[in-house]
């Protein structure tokens, strides 16, 4: 009986609630009131009110919310931002836009998603709004990433993400007698030199990297696909040899990127794990479960790690993790140019407020004052406007021994050749990485691994010509 009463009450409540939810369905005018009254009105959110010329931004980066607030402050125009989890962002945008959704006016993308978005026609042509007038003001590679296969401008980014090598100045002084970024850069100028550097560091009791994946962003200075043919350049094999050597000759601390010891190595000595521990075949230490990490590793020898390879956003990652070693870091160039990540903003092709959306994009990406404000606000993000980078070129960063980082990043970004980037990079790169890890752990020999790699590429992209 009690249950029945409960059920009756609950059903009534359910109906009332769903009525309230119903209300907000079609006509948004009267509905929003009934919705919020029934809901007990917790959020008369700033974005639910506002005029009709309000534009809607679907983003995967929280940054844009701050941009939107700043935009409102400056221009008084409303922008509603909807933040969606990065991993699910493509699903959301694809489903919605293919379903004919016209709500988002501004959509964004990361480099690896952009090609698909272009191919599906999600981004509006920005050239019709005069985007090309700004071509010279933005760092070249970022401008190119925003273009589709026909060279039409579809998206623009407010930031650049060139990769660099972050190293410990104090260790550099002890081992190499100098901490000058120019000089240290020479120690990383090609893969063979890196191996020598690694040996020198090992002899001195240090490890060059925490993981063997640090050179990933510099992993090959050539395009994966040229004229529809798979192109495995010599530099790819060199990188493969480097990664295998780093692993097999004990040059790293066998920490996986983003695992506990990888972070710990930023602030001081860490235990040297073994190959077996990293691969999981020795389960006496679990690197992902920091639970008993200290206890389990107390008998292992300790070492300090010399360098990390990360894109420019690594500046912030290190800043938050270096603790006592703050100030004794430096940044230098790697063996090749590379970049990772970045948020690109464009107009949805189904938007009904394209002019307003273009105004917002211009404000975020092409406005010097905004870029200035963003450098201040983000505490170290690297913007894409050349003039602003120029202006901040003498800014010194105390965490990195007062190095002038903006000048450095600009220089690195100018070296990136975007023609070497293809839409196949993610899949082919992952397959290559797979081959490398099966060789380094001895799971298969080089020929088998490379053959498997060809098979993977052939089955994923049947159209690509492959010469084995």
């Amino acid at each position: 009986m009690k249950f029945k009463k409960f059920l009756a009450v609950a059903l009534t409540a359910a109906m009332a609630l769903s009525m309230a939810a119903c209300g907000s369905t079609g006509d948004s005018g009267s509905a929003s009131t009934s919705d919020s009254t029934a809901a007990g009105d917790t959020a008369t959110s700033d974005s639910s009110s506002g005029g009709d010329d309000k534009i809607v931004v679907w983003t995967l980066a929280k940054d844009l919310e701050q941009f939107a607030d700043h935009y409102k402050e400056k221009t008084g125009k409303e922008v509603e931002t909807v933040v969606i989890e990065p991993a699910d962002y493509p699903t959301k945008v694809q489903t919605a836009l293919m379903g004919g959704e016209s709500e988002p006016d501004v959509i964004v993308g990361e480099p690896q998603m952009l090609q698909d978005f272009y191919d599906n026609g999600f981004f509006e042509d920005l050239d019709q709004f005069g985007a090309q007038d700004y071509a010279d003001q933005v760092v070249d590679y970022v401008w190119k990433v925003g273009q589709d296969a026909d060279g039409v401008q579809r998206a623009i980014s407010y930031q650049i993400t060139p990769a660099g090598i972050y190293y410990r100045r104090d260790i550099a002084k002890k081992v190499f007698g100098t901490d000058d970024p120019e000089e240290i850069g020479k120690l990383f100028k090609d893969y063979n030199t890196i191996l020598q550097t690694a040996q020198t560091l090992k002899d001195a009791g240090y490890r060059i990297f925490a993981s063997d994946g640090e050179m990933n962003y510099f992993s090959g200075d050539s395009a994966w696909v040229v004229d529809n043919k798979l192109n495995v350049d010599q530099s790819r094999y060199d990188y493969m040899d480097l990664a295998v050597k780093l692993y097999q000759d004990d040059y790293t601390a066998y920490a996986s990127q983003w695992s506990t010891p990888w972070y710990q190595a930023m602030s001081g000595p860490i235990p040297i794990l073994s190959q077996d521990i990293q691969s999981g075949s020795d389960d006496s230490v679990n690197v992902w479960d920091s639970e008993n990490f200290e206890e389990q590793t107390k008998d292992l020898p300790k070492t300090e790690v010399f360098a990390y390879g990360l894109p420019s956003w690594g500046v912030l990652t290190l800043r938050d993790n270096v603790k006592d070693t703050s100030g004794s870091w430096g940044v230098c160039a790697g063996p090749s140019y590379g970049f990772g990540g970045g948020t690109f903003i464009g107009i949805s092709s189904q938007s009904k407020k394209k002019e307003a959306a273009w105004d917002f994009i211009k404000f975020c990406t092409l406005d010097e004052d905004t870029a200035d404000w963003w450098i201040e606000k983000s505490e170290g993000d690297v913007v894409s406007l050349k003039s602003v980078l120029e202006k901040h070129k003498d800014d010194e960063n105390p965490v990195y021994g007062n190095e002038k980082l903006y000048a450095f990043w600009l220089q690195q970004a100018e070296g990136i050749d975007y023609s070497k980037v293809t839409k196949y990079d993610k899949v082919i790169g992952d397959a290559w990485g797979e081959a490398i890890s099966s060789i380094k752990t001895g799971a298969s020999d080089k020929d088998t691994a490379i053959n498997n790699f060809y098979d993977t590429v052939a089955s994923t992209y049947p159209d690509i010509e492959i010469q084995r």
Partner: protein
Amino acid sequence: MKRQGKPVGFVVNKTILYILLILLAALCIMPFLLMMVNATRSGVEISHSFSFVPGKSLGANYRQLSDYFNIYRGMLNSVIVALPATFLTAYFSAMTAYGLAFYKFKTNKLIFVSILIFMMIPGQLSLIGFYQLCTKLHMVNSYLPLILPAIASPGTVYFLRQYAISVVPRSLMEAARLDGASELYIFHRIVLPLMQPGVATMAIMCFIGNWNNYLLPMIILNKKEKFTLPVLITTLNAATDLQSNQGAIYLAVAISVIPILIVFCIFSRQIIGSIASGAVKE
């Protein structure tokens, strides 16, 4: 000696048993405890080391969380979706199950088989089509597409049909009919109470499923103030610096688990209470 022998063995047995049970309990509680503790630590602390000692960042995490969204609003949204969906599922599935189990009509078999077949099709397959349908019906950005489909839940019907056959005696219904009860009356007053434990079990499952449902709300809802809890929590991953939000994520998850615990407590008492009682005396 003889008198002591048995109690000693008994005590030893009990001790072993209790040690095992305590270990098991600890194993089960550990992740929850860890979640609670991590909710009080900063992102940097979480990725550097592990500890059962609470940190000092609860306030900071909460501010971080509030900076992103109003978690209580998200919770309310989740309740608005999960409660009606659960009751629709429970009520209509029980009704369908009862019908399929006890009424003889021509297409009974056919309907049951087609329900079985629909159980096999994953909903994600038709995502784009579903979105298009919702656009045409002007239901994007509303909770209706999340609630209404709950009426038809093949899995629950299947379970409850088998359950109804095993717990509801035909003789009870015949008795009711002789006394002049209408069919709906029989269902509401006799069958539903009998099926209560099964329905409650399915309701728990359904509530948890709806509470944790992520894909559909993520696709259907386009307004931040309408996002349900899981969709909101994942937006914490959208920060430039992933690590800094770890503490806030733990805190958000910890807060979001509370309603599930409450619902489970309510219904589990129902289940245990009802299993003991029966209706027909043999």
